[in-house]
């Protein structure tokens, strides 16, 4: 039987060679200057340009993921309340499709729809006399990326929230009503507090997702916006200058941001009351 453990050998070797060692490679070369250990690259990342990039990336990721989490919660909540299984299936399928469609094709779809000569842009101009370009909307800038990010973060939020929202007991709501409370009191006192861990977890995952988004912003904005993943990408296939050490330092910082926000997800999953609900024993926390 012990021999069976050999089955683990290839996969651990795989993880070591293709994930862990390369990651440590990034760590070590980010700390290696011309004369051994050095923080030069990290010092460089605190210069104005990179500081701005972190600020913009964080702000873009935070606003889009918070909005997507709230909107996704509303959608999941509405979906459960229609109690129409057909509709739920359609939305699940639609969300998965959109999530699979994300990346390059979605970016292209946005340029075709909301670019300067996009279908919707022209339609609004010609028929409703609304010039969104003149109003400051630019697909290659913050506003455009914000809208594009929402369109892959929202379905992701719906899919992440749906299991939690659908395990809210209908009796809790009914109990609220028979005890004299309104729908909004139900939301405030039960639904939101109970779902809070799952909302925070979802938010963590959405934020990490937005923060590491490369393809969408690369295609839509390219070098016209200062985002961390785009800068890292430029360090590799840079048209300007290849600076791997700086890229490594930026990567380490990005990994820290991602690690923190992902840990929210795992922490929140453990905290969830929805999972503790069935517990019978008195010593459960």
């Amino acid at each position, binding site marked *: 039987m012990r021999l069976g453990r050999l089955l683990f050998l290839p996969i651990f070797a795989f993880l070591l060679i293709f994930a862990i060692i390369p990651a440590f490679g990034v760590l070590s070369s980010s700390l290696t200057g011309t004369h051994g250990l050095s923080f030069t690259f990290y010092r460089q990342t605190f210069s104005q340009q990179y500081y701005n990039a972190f600020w913009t990336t964080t702000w873009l990721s935070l606003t889009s993921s918070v909005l997507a989490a709230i909107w996704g919660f509303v959608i999941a909540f509405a979906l459960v309340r229609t109690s129409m299984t057909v509709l739920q299936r359609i939305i699940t399928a639609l969300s998965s499709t959109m999530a699979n469609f994300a990346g390059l094709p979605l970016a292209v779809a946005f340029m*075709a729809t909301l670019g300067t000569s996009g279908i919707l842009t022209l339609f609004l101009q010609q028929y409703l006399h609304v010039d969104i370009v003149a109003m400051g909307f630019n697909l290659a800038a913050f506003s455009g990326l914000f809208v594009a990010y929402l369109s892959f973060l929202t379905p992701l939020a719906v899919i992440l929230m749906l299991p939690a929202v659908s395990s809210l007991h209908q009796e809790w709501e009914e109990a609220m009503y028979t005890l004299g409370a309104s729908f909004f009191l139900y939301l405030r006192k039960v639904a939101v507090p109970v779902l809070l861990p799952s909302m925070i977890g979802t938010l963590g995952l959405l934020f990490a997702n937005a923060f590491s988004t*490369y393809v969408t912003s690369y295609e839509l904005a390219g070098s016209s916006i200062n985002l961390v993943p785009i800068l890292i990408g430029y360090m590799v296939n840079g048209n300007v200058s290849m600076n791997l050490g700086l890229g490594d330092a930026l990567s380490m910082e990005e990994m820290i941001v991602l690690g923190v926000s992902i840990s929210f997800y795992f922490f929140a999953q453990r905290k969830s009351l929805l999972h503790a609900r069935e517990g019978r024993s008195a010593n459960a926390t």
Partner: protein
Amino acid sequence: MRRKWISKIVIFFFILQMVIPVIGLMIFSIDNEGLFTLSSYQTLFTDPSFLSSLMNSLGISLVSVVLTILLVTPPIWYGYLYSPRILRVLEAMSFITFVLPGVVLGLAYVQFFSNPPFALAGTPTLLPFAFTLFGMPYYMQSVLNRLRHSEAKLYHDVARSLGSSNLRSLLRVQVPLLAPGILIGSILVFSIGMGEFTITQLTTGGSFMTLPIYLQVDFQNNPLAGAAMAVIALLIAIVLVSLTLGTFRRRKKRREAIHVNHSSVEQAV
């Protein structure tokens, strides 16, 4: 009391949000200054480099799927039955991909694999490994889900109590039992392979044409053909998603479907 109409309005707006870029894209791809045209699709299908990038994408995705199945299935199965602790370690480690996004991994690969004995950067050799790495957590979850819901251990014990050898139980009982999980996991890995752009671009420098690389180049040169290409990517996504959902429908495990679909997401971005 249940305010169903509010729910329906909310869902309507969500569908609108999802569908508008898709409709825009479709109109864009068939619009020739107000006239209907399919020329962009025609150009696409007669372009030999489109066909070769399609073949490249299919090939690399299939290789990734085979690699994932061979590499990941046996330890999960064995771990679930006999060494849950090592399995837990493996599960935790598979989440490393969440902190190693495409750009970071690309940067790491370019450095680590540029010197002998692993001078692999610049060739597509690294891609199946990268796609396997990205697909691993989703593949693992879908096989584990299946293991949990099919009482694999019970059937294994039953088969052996009836005198079957381990190997025979594995081939005749366990593999058929796990097949749906393997299938769904494979589709997830396959769709990652078909859509991945970042690693491909960073490690091959664009020298290896896959569908996404072709799309990126093509849209810059000829937006119409690029849009047509994106429509095809959408169709591929629809086919893959309906395959996974179809597999679930037959098994009537909706809860599980929601669970795995959540893993089908979040790649590609």
